[in-house]
């Protein structure tokens, strides 16, 4: 635990003093190079947790420690991909990325920053669209620019808030592949919110499952037991895929509420490896 790259300890957040906390006793850790997805029903505070990690929101209690330093306020060490892409419409694609690059390295020359930005635009497959305005791009392309912008500052950690939520299934697949490729090439540490169970299985090394809010917490950490070489095309032929998938869907359908009703006394985060340890799984279901 001490060696973990990012440690979250006993985090909670309440929006009003007399209201119950949205989430409570949230503790987890993420290792360097790990890809973590977090799944939970709406209102369990996923986005708030991500905002706390980004430094955009302060928690009501608890600490976040990244790379041996407490997270207080936003930092260039953490890149954020926003749900609504959040590109500046008055900048071209290139300028959007250059804006981020020059924020990271203010003393770089315009040329150097542009070269650096172009490399990341190429990486997300948008070569040739550098001078287009975001309004001229499709939803998927906009989101890719957002990803390029987040990667271009070479953050120690990438935070993504449902980056593909607004995309259609086909585009989503293409951008997921793109992301997977980049992440495995750069060994990026990623924390990502998603609603899509398949997406989580494809991308994540670990999947955090949150119980319902209020009093939400991370009830289970599901270790992805599929081989690293999984791809979107072949993943669903592996019986292991369905074991994990069923486990996740069961959680969302049944257990997420039951855990909330059981209360906070049972605030233990179970580590689950579906398909490998059937006994633990059955214990969690019971």
């Amino acid at each position: 635990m001490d060696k973990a790259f990012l440690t979250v300890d006993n985090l909670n957040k309440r929006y009003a003093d007399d209201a119950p906390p949205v989430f409570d006793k949230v503790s987890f850790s993420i290792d360097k190079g790990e890809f973590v997805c977090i799944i939970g029903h709406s209102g369990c505070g996923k986005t708030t947790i991500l905002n706390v990690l980004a430094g955009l929101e302060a928690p009501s209690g608890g600490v976040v420690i990244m790379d041996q330093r407490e997270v207080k306020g936003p930092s260039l060490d953490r890149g954020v991909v926003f749900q609504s892409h959040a590109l500046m419409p008055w900048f071209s694609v290139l300028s959007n990325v250059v804006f981020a690059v020059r924020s990271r390295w203010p003393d770089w020359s315009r040329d150097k920053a542009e070269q650096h930005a172009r490399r990341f635009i190429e990486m997300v497959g948008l070569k040739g669209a550098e001078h287009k305005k975001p309004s001229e791009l499709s939803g998927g392309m906009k989101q890719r620019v957002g990803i390029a912008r987040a990667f271009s500052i070479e953050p120690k950690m990438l935070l993504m808030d449902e980056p593909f939520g607004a995309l259609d299934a086909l585009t989503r697949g293409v951008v997921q592949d793109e992301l997977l490729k980049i992440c495995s090439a750069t060994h990026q540490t990623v924390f990502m919110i998603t609603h899509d169970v398949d997406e989580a299985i494809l991308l994540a090394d670990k999947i955090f499952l949150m119980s319902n809010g209020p009093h939400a917490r991370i009830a289970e950490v599901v270790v992805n037991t599929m081989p690293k070489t999984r791809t979107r095309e072949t993943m669903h032929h592996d019986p292991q895929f369905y074991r994990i998938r069923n486990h996740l869907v069961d959680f969302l359908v049944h257990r997420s509420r039951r855990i909330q009703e059981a209360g906070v006394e049972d605030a233990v985060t179970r580590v689950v490896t579906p398909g490998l340890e059937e006994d633990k799984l059955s214990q969690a279901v019971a």
Partner: protein
Amino acid sequence: MKPASQLGWRAALISLAIFGCLLLVWHLATAPKESARIEAGSASSSSAEDEYAKLMGKSSSSPVKTSGFPGLAQMGETMRKELANPFYDNGPNDKGIGIQLGYSLARVGLGFAIAALVAIPLGFLLGMSPLMQRALNPFIQILKPISPLAWMPLALYTIKDSSISGIFVIFICSVWPMLMNTAFGVASVRRDWLNVAKTLEVKPLRKAFLVILPAAAPTILTGMRISMGIAWLVIVAAEMLVGGTGIGYFVWNEWNNLSLTSVIFAILVIGVTGMVLDLVFARLQKLVTYTE
């Protein structure tokens, strides 16, 4: 493409027709008196009228009517004369329309520019700080509805210069729309963009110029456009009051000369100039508008 251009042509045709009708009505409204005079002339009273005309320094043979509402021909004559030599200067009471217009534009430009220099930074402050917004709101709400001309006596007394007082009045009337719109535009910049700037640790000045200013620019330009419209309305009234130079003074002076054709001509010039100013700001607005 085709239906749109067709629509344009049809609209232009109707506009021309309306314009033609207006001219015709004008002509008919002013014409009958002339015929009446000609009838009177055929009667024996013509010699007395000729005499009177000679006394007044005018020849009776002149077909141009000198009293009553001017006709189209007189109007055309005045316009031709004024436009042929718009920049002549025969002393303080007789300057060409171009010079007068130049004075007015200079006053409006100066007052407007000073207003922009004050209103836009102040609007930024109001937009970014809810505290300042609340603190300054009562002042703004009370000062905003005051007719700019009501400031004139105070301005004349303290500044003691009619020309600068005119500029001050333009300043005071254009400052409010710009201030309100800038504050509103800055306050309603999308959270997402500010969050991006935050996570990128963008320095305040860089954030102001590269994120907030472009995001709020369309709203700010709207405020400037409204301000310019008001300034152009007010300058005519202000110049009528303080006199000396300017298009407003020109109107008043020609009224005192009972030269209605010149007054009508000046009105047209004021209208066209106002339209051009508005078009310029519409163009600027288009430049800074972004589509999301």
